[in-house]
């Protein structure tokens, strides 16, 4: 019988431990609060001694993401983690990785902006993550964990998705998830890669065609084809990779849509409201791209559902996607706190009553 290893860990530590156990080959990063413990943990626990996983502190996030690009080009499992300002710096590199169709795992333990902002948790990087960030028509397959357990679980899954689609995968967390401690079941150790994909530029083997990695195409006719291939891949993700959690939505008259840490707080608010007889449900998108459009649309078509509310740690970003899914069929409201503030369950509960006229 396999014995599961249970440990009390910070979210950032869970990312690091899970990366080692996912058989990652390399981590390249640059310190930034509130995710610095990721690299610290990797160094402290000596990932290199454990599995041969390389860890290198780069001189900047610009450099780190380009190191990721290099290792990804050679078919290795590579990841980086950062927080909002650092992710902004990485955006050119992320666009190159998407353009060159390379797999890698990116983690944003996001904080409040704009600018240097605050080190407190925020979801203000939603637009940056799912609507672009860098230049060009690309998409990041984005997973939003709500717990330390999911922080750990999404690592191996993220790598597998990245390789399946040859596309960068982003885990969009926040400072609260990074810093808080929870008891988690650790994933099993899996081996590092021993064979690399055919496209990997890790030296042309004897008798094989040489490979190259680029995102450049001077001919627009050719480059349109590349873009069409990327788009076809994104459509496939939209068909196959939508992930969500639906809590108490079956009989709900009102639906709260929330992702990540705030979804957990909103769940508490909803439970309190239910105790008072209000039928409210929680819909939690887990994949932010591809967004669960079809599922939200279906809810909006239910006769019993009278309204929606998007609850976010920002000024209202995901609400745009929810609104697109609802297409005006039902009213939608918004509640959010800004700049690193996190609402209490009661604040959200009261906002629900105001919004839904309860």
């Amino acid at each position, binding site marked *: 019988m396999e014995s599961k290893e249970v440990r009390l860990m910070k979210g950032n530590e869970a990312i690091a431990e899970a990366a080692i156990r996912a058989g990652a080959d390399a981590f390249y990063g640059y310190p930034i609060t509130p995710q610095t413990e990721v690299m610290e943990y990797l160094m402290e626990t000596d990932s290199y001694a454990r599995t041969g996983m390389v860890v290198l502190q780069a001189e900047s996030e610009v450099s780190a993401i380009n190191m990721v690009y290099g290792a990804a080009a050679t078919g290795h499992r590579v990841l980086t983690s950062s927080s909002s300002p650092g992710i902004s710096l990485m955006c050119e590199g992320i666009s190159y990785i998407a353009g060159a169709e390379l797999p890698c795992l990116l983690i944003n333990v996001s904080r409040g902006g704009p600018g240097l902002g605050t080190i407190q948790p925020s979801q203000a990087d939603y637009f940056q993550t799912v609507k672009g960030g860098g230049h060009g028509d690309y998409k990041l397959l984005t997973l939003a964990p709500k717990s330390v357990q999911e922080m750990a679980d999404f690592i191996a899954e993220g790598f597998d998705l990245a390789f399946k689609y040859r596309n960068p995968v982003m885990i969009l967390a926040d400072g609260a998830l990074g810093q808080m401690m929870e008891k988690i079941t650790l994933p099993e150790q899996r081996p590092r890669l021993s064979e690399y994909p055919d496209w990997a530029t890790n*030296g042309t083997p004897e008798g094989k065609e040489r490979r190259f990695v680029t995102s450049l195409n001077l001919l627009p006719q050719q480059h349109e084809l590349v873009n069409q291939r990327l788009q076809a891949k994104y459509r496939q993700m939209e068909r196959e990779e939508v992930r969500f959690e639906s809590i108490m939505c079956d009989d709900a008259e009102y639906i709260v849509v929330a992702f990540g840490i705030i979804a957990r707080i909103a769940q508490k608010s909803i439970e309190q409201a239910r105790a008072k007889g209000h039928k409210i449900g929680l819909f939690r998108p887990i994949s932010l791209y591809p967004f669960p459009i079809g599922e939200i649309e279906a809810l909006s078509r239910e006769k019993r559902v009278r309204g929606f509310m998007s609850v976010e740690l920002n000024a209202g970003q995901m609400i745009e996607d929810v609104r697109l899914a609802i297409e005006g069929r039902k009213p939608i409201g918004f509640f959010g706190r800004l700049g690193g503030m996190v609402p209490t369950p009661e604040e959200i509960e009261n906002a629900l009553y105001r919004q839904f006229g309860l």
Partner: protein
Amino acid sequence: MDVKDIVKPENLVYRKSRLMSDATFNFCPGCGHGVVVRTIAEVIEEMGIEHDVIGISPVGCSVFLYDFYKFDVVEAAHGRACAVATGIKRVQPDKYVFTYQGDGDLAAIGTGETIHACNRGENLVIVFINNGIYGMTGGQMAPTTLEGMKTTTCPRGRDVKTMGYPLNITPLLAQLDGVCYVTRHSVHTPANVRKLKKAFRQAFENQRDKKGTSIVEVVSNCNSGWGLTPKAANDWMIENMFKKYPLGDMKVDGKLVMDMNAPR
């Protein structure tokens, strides 16, 4: 005599490296880039390491290296070649990794990546083409542009008071402990090409022997960007570029061999 007689093996004095494809160079006629590109291929072929080589071509006139070489090449963002090379080399320490960077790439937008890769002593070969200008984008001022030299963004000549001084970066890099070999060459005569070839060989052998960073700078021309004929460009290079950027070794086997008091 028929052409078939001419190409008989016993008549062969020079052939294109097996590692060069048949793609047409995108370089302007007379440009030094092409000579440097094929010289690297010759060295890799002679060392027999082509199955273990990964080249990095960042943005610049040489961005299409992957079209010219028959070994693995990764294109990189402008300035980031040394970071990409580091990312590769750290997970594959037994491969040979080289970057091929222009002066804008290595000494302006990518200065940070270059200095830190060198400072970590990344076991790489850095090929640095110093043509004093941004060739690819049509001849703008580079960090290496000489004082008074005209480019499209300093049409009245580089005014060092407002635009800064020509950046002689390799002597600076030579002083970093992680760097084992720094040398400066040119390709304007066959003798110089032969010297360059030896330098490349030395650099790749350093990498094989895990000695740290090797930097081979080539002072080159950009006849198009300079607005000169190929011949006039080479003459201008000898007359002006070599004064500011004298040829020769700066660091060999980890020891500085340059005259620190020489005008730089």
